[in-house]
């Protein structure tokens, strides 16, 4: 005979009726959030394959529902997975009971009852309880710094108590039922409890005051009737607490259960913060009644997605733990930024312009835009975009920028490059070299030199060696007569207007020259061309030099000797994490030496400290480039390779603290050294 739903419970259907007010509380709580969130700005987003309206289906399924990013921390991930999936299965089981009661769906018969309703649901409950215990002990006794710095979120203890009670009362109700009715095949937890606790005496009909006296059960349940009452208590407590749990979701950190999948579904799956480009035409238009805010000064200047970010954030601090600024004693903590914004949102301070000052200008400009925080975030929050929006406001609306960065910015504005006080002239890097100038209709590739390679002496070698490689391979290439900057530093400093001006000048020149294919030496230039120039009408086939070298190697145009050197490769953030170019540089390195990895590599790479305009920063605290260089040197590799002039300059500088030897090289320099004469 199958299980009888609502056994020993009079008016059990009432639990379903009680669900209505609890669900109503849940809906009302979510509605309150929606009312807050909708005060953000709507954003029209481009179509993307696999997209349903604003929803990215793949991201919804993988990052949102499966929660794949949580498992980057395996222990916490598994504990969270056990809890979440355990509760999901228990919810499904409860829904099936409901369907059985209302519509007679046969869930309590045969194999399904044994293996799903009994075994699976017991397993789910046990997993959830295990996960819960792990998280409780970890938070209560071994709390990692990231959870408490700069602030710990309250509300978890009540959640743990609530969930624990739901699970325990569920098991006890099941065990009491089994103890009275006999073993339930498959319900291994219920069976064990029924057989190995005082509940066993209920089945044996041997409940006596003596038995009760030797157990932890209260004397209330000293006879059979008492045990039936005990079952009823457990059943009702379990049901009502489960309903309370649902109602509690929107009023506690549990809201992430709903919003994390939503946030993942709305997050553009392209890596990096995706700043896009700004349209300044309304500022030119004298008829325009309203001009958009430049950056964000208050919560209503952010989009819905950003406001969902702040609501979803659990303050888990994974972003804090990987942030190069936070880990080297700077004012910035991406978690701290999220906390501040979440508090403003919760307090309804949507129009409060003290927001930027609450976050602090120092923190905003300390961000290296490396996007490590985004990568680490388990709920797909875009922290860099928030920080960059605040930065845009500071520079474009309030003219605020740190002094050194301001000098670079002014130089960019005046001279179209940020290297103020440089001792290098435009043509110095190609002194004594025959470098072809790009000719319209004749040259295939534009070799884009960029500002750092032109104006920083150490980086000039990258271009010289790349010229050697291209000549060796017989590539049709040319450079611009006048060295230019893509404008990326302006964008990273937050001045979208200056970026647009510089980009539009370049696009105009490219159009005149008929440039279609570009080789870049700097990942920042590459990122600008592929992500931002295309939005301003400049669409080109752009290849980073590390990838281009790999293509030349594969096509047999480069004849290289392999050295015995061990080479440690540092992933530039704008190449690796932001553009997913991780394997090609490694393949190049492996072909000229023995590749060695740092502990933090590929998408988890640690920034050199030079991004986000912080190449021109007077760092407080530990220097980021020294931390990264130390990590590289600790691999005992002979050479540190990279594929970004800014990384090269930062690591070269960082290594001066530890060694007088020249350790850092660009990938082009290393390849050029290994070229064999044909």
């Amino acid at each position, binding site marked *: 005979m199958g299980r009888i739903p609502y056994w020993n419970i009079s008016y059990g259907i009432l639990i379903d009726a009680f669900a209505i007010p609890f669900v109503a509380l849940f809906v009302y709580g979510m509605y309150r959030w929606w009312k807050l969130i909708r005060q953000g700005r709507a954003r029209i987003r481009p179509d993307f394959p696999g997209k349903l309206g604003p929803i990215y289906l793949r991201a919804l399924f993988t990052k949102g529902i499966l929660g794949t990013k949580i498992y980057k921390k395996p222990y916490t991930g598994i504990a969270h997975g056990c809890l979440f999936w355990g509760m999901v299965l228990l919810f499904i089981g409860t829904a099936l009971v409901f369907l059985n009661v209302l519509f007679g769906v046969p869930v309590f018969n045969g194999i399904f009852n044994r293996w799903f309703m009994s075994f699976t649901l017991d397993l789910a409950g046990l997993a959830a309880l295990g996960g819960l215990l792990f998280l409780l002990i970890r938070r209560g006794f071994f709390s990692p710094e990231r959870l408490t710095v700069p602030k710990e979120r309250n509300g978890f203890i009540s959640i743990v108590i609530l969930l624990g009670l739901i699970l325990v009362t569920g098991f006890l109700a099941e065990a009491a039922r089994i103890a009275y009715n006999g073993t339930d095949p498959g319900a291994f937890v219920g069976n064990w409890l029924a057989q190995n606790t005082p509940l066993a005496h209920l089945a044996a009909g041997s409940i006596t005051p003596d038995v009760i006296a030797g157990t932890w059960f209260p004397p209330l349940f000293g006879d059979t009737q008492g045990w039936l009452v005990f079952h009823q208590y457990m059943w009702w407590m379990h049901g009502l607490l489960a309903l309370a749990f649902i109602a509690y979701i929107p009023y506690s950190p549990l809201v992430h259960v709903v919003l994390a999948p939503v946030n993942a579904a709305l997050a553009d799956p392209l890596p990096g913060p995706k700043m896009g480009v700004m349209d*300044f035409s309304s*500022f*030119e238009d*004298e008829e325009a009644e309203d*001009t958009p805010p*430049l950056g964000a000064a208050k919560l209503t200047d952010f989009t819905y997605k950003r406001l969902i970010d702040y609501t979803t954030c659990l303050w888990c601090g994974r972003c804090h733990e990987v942030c190069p600024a936070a880990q080297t004693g700077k004012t910035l903590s991406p978690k701290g930024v999220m906390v501040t914004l979440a508090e403003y949102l919760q307090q309804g301070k949507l129009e409060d312009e003290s927001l930027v000052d609450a976050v602090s200008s120092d923190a905003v400009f300390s961000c290296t835009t490396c996007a490590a925080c985004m990568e680490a975030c388990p709920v797909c929050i875009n922290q860099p975009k928030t920080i960059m929006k605040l930065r845009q406001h500071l*520079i*474009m*609306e*309030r*003219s605020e*920028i740190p*002094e050194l960065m*301001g000098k670079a*910015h*002014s*130089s960019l*504005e*005046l*001279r*179209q490059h940020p290297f*103020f*006080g*440089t*001792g*290098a*002239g*435009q*043509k*110095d890097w190609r002194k004594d070299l025959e470098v072809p100038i790009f000719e319209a209709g004749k040259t295939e590739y534009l070799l884009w030199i960029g500002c750092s390679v032109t104006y920083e002496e150490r980086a000039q070698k990258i271009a010289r060696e790349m010229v050697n490689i291209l000549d060796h391979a017989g590539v049709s290439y040319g450079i611009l007569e006048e060295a230019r900057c893509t404008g990326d530093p302006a964008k990273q400093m937050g*001045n979208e*207007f200056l970026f647009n001006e510089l980009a539009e000048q370049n696009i105009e020149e490219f159009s005149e020259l008929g440039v279609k294919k570009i080789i870049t030496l700097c990942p920042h230039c590459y990122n600008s061309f592929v992500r931002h120039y295309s939005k301003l009408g400049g669409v080109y086939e752009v290849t980073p030099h590390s990838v281009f070298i790999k293509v030349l190697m594969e096509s047999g145009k480069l004849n290289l000797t392999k050295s015995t050197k061990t080479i440690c490769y540092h992933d530039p953030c704008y190449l690796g994490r932001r553009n997913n170019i991780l394997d090609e540089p490694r393949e190049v390195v492996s072909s000229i030496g023995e590749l060695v990895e740092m502990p933090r590599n590929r998408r988890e790479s640690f920034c050199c400290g030079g991004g986000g305009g912080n190449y021109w920063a007077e760092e407080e605290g530990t220097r980021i480039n020294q931390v990264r260089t130390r990590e590289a040197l600790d691999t005992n590799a002979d050479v540190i390779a990279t594929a970004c002039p800014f990384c090269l300059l930062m690591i070269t500088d960082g290594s001066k603290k530890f060694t007088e030897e020249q350790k850092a090289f660009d990938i082009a320099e290393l390849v050029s050294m290994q070229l064999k004469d044909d």
Partner: protein
Amino acid sequence: MHIAVLAKVVPDYEVPAGDFELSDNRAHSRYTRMMGLYDENAIETGVQLKEKYSASLTIISYGAEDDIPVLRKAIAMGAEKLVLVTGQSDDASVIAANLKMAIDNLGDVDLILAGQQSADMDRGVVHGTLAEMLGLTFIPQVSKIESENGGWKISQLTETGSRDLQFNGKGVFSITSIPENVPRIPAVRAIFAAKKKPVEKVAEVESNAMGIEEVSVEIPTMDSVCEFLPVEDVGETVKTLLTKLREERYL
């Protein structure tokens, strides 16, 4: 209160020595044109005074019409108006006479600020000459200005020290560079607004040039010499380095 700031558009003053070349005894025209460094300090000082004392601020320049887009930055920084006297003379007396004409035309100027020296000619002569022509007091190398009891409290900063001065009436001050007057980056809205603000173009007036003839112009040649300084005491080494750089007139 009406403040006028004198600004000059010059060729890029940071062109590396190895890349610098002359054309007709002046910096080559290929170099980007920009406002002089000290002039921007003077504009920033003017904007701060304007904001503090609700003054009006006018930028006055002597130069070519092509300079207007560059000078718009000064308006974007916070000035209300630009007066450009169109002319091409390099003669300090001619420039001063034309600036005087522009100031006279404005009529109600209380304070005239200028960068302590231009970034191209490095003479630091025009503002003194202008003060003489206007019959006003000239105070060079001013770092701070405050209005006090109807007059001015002024800090003067030189290489050897500083001193505070009090002054009543109208005057011409040359402004030196200090951290407090680092020129602001114009806000984007101000850049767009600056495009709509008035630019008054005035033809230059004839005036007598100074009795000086330019015979030749030379620029420094690149010369690499390496000298190692002992580093037993870093502080002492830095002092020695500074002394040597001063002796060689690099600073």
